[in-house]
């Protein structure tokens, strides 16, 4: 009975975090982007500085008619948003935010494998949406998504492999347990590659060619309305939370901080995640969208070699330490 309660409680907590954190990131994006452009952003919904803007958006989306195009592959079309969203929920389950047993939804021994594999599934949602919509813009968006996935899974995986080599384990809590402060400069290149590749996989600007609205309307999501469209958007923001959380865990030492080690580790995790989420927003506001070929070039000629160099460096340092 106690076990059931424990599992239920963990699931509920993770689910609530899954619903709340992306909205917090989204609202922050509204505000930060506005102020970076000299605007105020939403000011009305909810009364105080438009804090309830995304709630209002959600209500609006829920009221809209759910349309499936006549020529669309109905089942796949309707299933795609769930496929895009749910993997991030599963990943969130495996991210440890504190050192104790209770601070992680479920400890997975092969954490890195699980997390990266499941995150890759999220992109399938866009592919399904693009193919099932029976729309040329959707198809183009889906194909660009596929190309992006192929180009950026590799450097992401290599960068994560470098950390796993350094820690000697693929378990996420195990990696943080082995973390030392000097890992940050040691793995900095890998961290940058991982973060950039993650951004590209989430299709966040400046890597948002799959949804480039000035070229292909809204890519794979062109035909979606109402709640299903909202789910795709939610998936993007859940993806930001997951990516920032993972970068924190893998490269920034998770709950390790200069002080407040006992009991307050989760604050460090959340703080680092929040700072990274801010950087994600900051990059979006600052840079224009890359062209499709520039995107591929960045990955294959820069990120992949850098990730490989990082692995070589990790190996050399690791051998030097062990002797």
């Amino acid at each position, binding site marked *: 009975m106690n076990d059931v309660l424990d599992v239920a409680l963990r699931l509920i907590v993770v689910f609530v975090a899954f619903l709340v954190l992306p909205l917090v990131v989204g609202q922050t994006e509204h505000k930060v982007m506005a*102020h970076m452009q000299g605007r*105020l952003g939403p*000011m009305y919904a909810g009364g105080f500085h438009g804090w309830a803007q995304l709630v209002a958006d959600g209500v609006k989306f829920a009221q809209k008619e759910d349309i499936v195009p006549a020529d669309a592959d109905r089942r796949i079309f309707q299933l795609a948003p769930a496929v895009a969203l749910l993997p991030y929920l599963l990943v969130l389950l495996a991210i440890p935010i504190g050192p104790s047993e209770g601070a992680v939804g479920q400890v997975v021994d092969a954490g890195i494998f699980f997390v990266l594999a499941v995150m890759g599934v999220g992109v399938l949602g866009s592919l399904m949406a693009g193919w099932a919509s029976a729309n040329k813009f959707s198809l183009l968006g889906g194909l660009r998504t596929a190309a992006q996935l192929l180009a950026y899974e590799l450097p992401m995986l290599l960068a994560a492999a470098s950390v796993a080599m350094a820690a000697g384990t693929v378990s996420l809590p195990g990696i943080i347990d082995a973390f030392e402060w000097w890992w940050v400069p040691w793995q900095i290149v890998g961290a940058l590659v991982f973060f950039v590749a993650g951004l590209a996989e989430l299709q966040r600007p400046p890597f948002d060619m799959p949804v480039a609205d000035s070229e292909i309307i809204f890519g794979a999501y062109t035909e979606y309305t109402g709640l299903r469209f909202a789910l795709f958007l939610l998936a993007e923001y859940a993806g930001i939370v997951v990516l920032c959380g993972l970068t924190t865990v893998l490269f920034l030492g998770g709950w390790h901080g200069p002080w407040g080690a006992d009991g307050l580790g989760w604050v460090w995790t959340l703080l680092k995640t929040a700072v990274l989420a801010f950087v994600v927003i*900051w990059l979006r506001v600052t840079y224009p969208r890359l062209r499709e070929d520039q995107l591929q070039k960045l990955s294959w000629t820069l990120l992949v070699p850098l990730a490989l160099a990082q692995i070589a460096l990790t190996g050399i340092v690791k051998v030097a330490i062990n002797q």
Partner: protein
Amino acid sequence: MTESLPPTRPRIPGAGLAKGLAVTLRTMTRKTVTEQYPDVQPELPPRTRGVIGLFEENCTVCMLCARECPDWCIYIDSHKETVPAAVEGGRERSRNVLDRFAIDFALCMYCGICIEVCPFDALFWSPEFEYAETDIHELTHERDRLREWMWTVPAPPALDPAAEEPKELAAARKAADKLAAAQAAAAEEPTPGEPTPGESTPGEPTPGEEGPA
């Protein structure tokens, strides 16, 4: 082409990217430019072209404004009235009485020509702008409404510190100076032979005093 360009500094890779990030971050710390209009009224400069006010006491129905208006949006009706002679045996005079003065703001393009041409200062810009209507006919403001706008006309802004003196002031000052000079000359007239600096020979105008003041 390229040889004539000045030598560029060695470029640090990513310097442009960092500069972009700095720009957005700096903008975030600055005050926003958003006007929260329905909640906060905008601060408009005194010469804002919001609406045209009519100071009908000054209007002589000369019709210049109506004739100059490029889109004919000013409507003026008037009649003549005979004013009895002011003195015994004098001549009767006629004067124009304004019956209707209306501006159709649905047609008006806010060029301000009517205000420029008015020789009697009867038309003024007011910064008020909240007079949208649901019926287009209501946008034709009649005489009483145009008169009401006059209460919202702000005082003209002060001249720039380095600006030229207003024409009226310059003329008045010139006349006063001339008068003072004449009085000083008259006061010194009884003691001839004592040369004073600045004294001018009578009949010969001092430079700068030529012509009518």
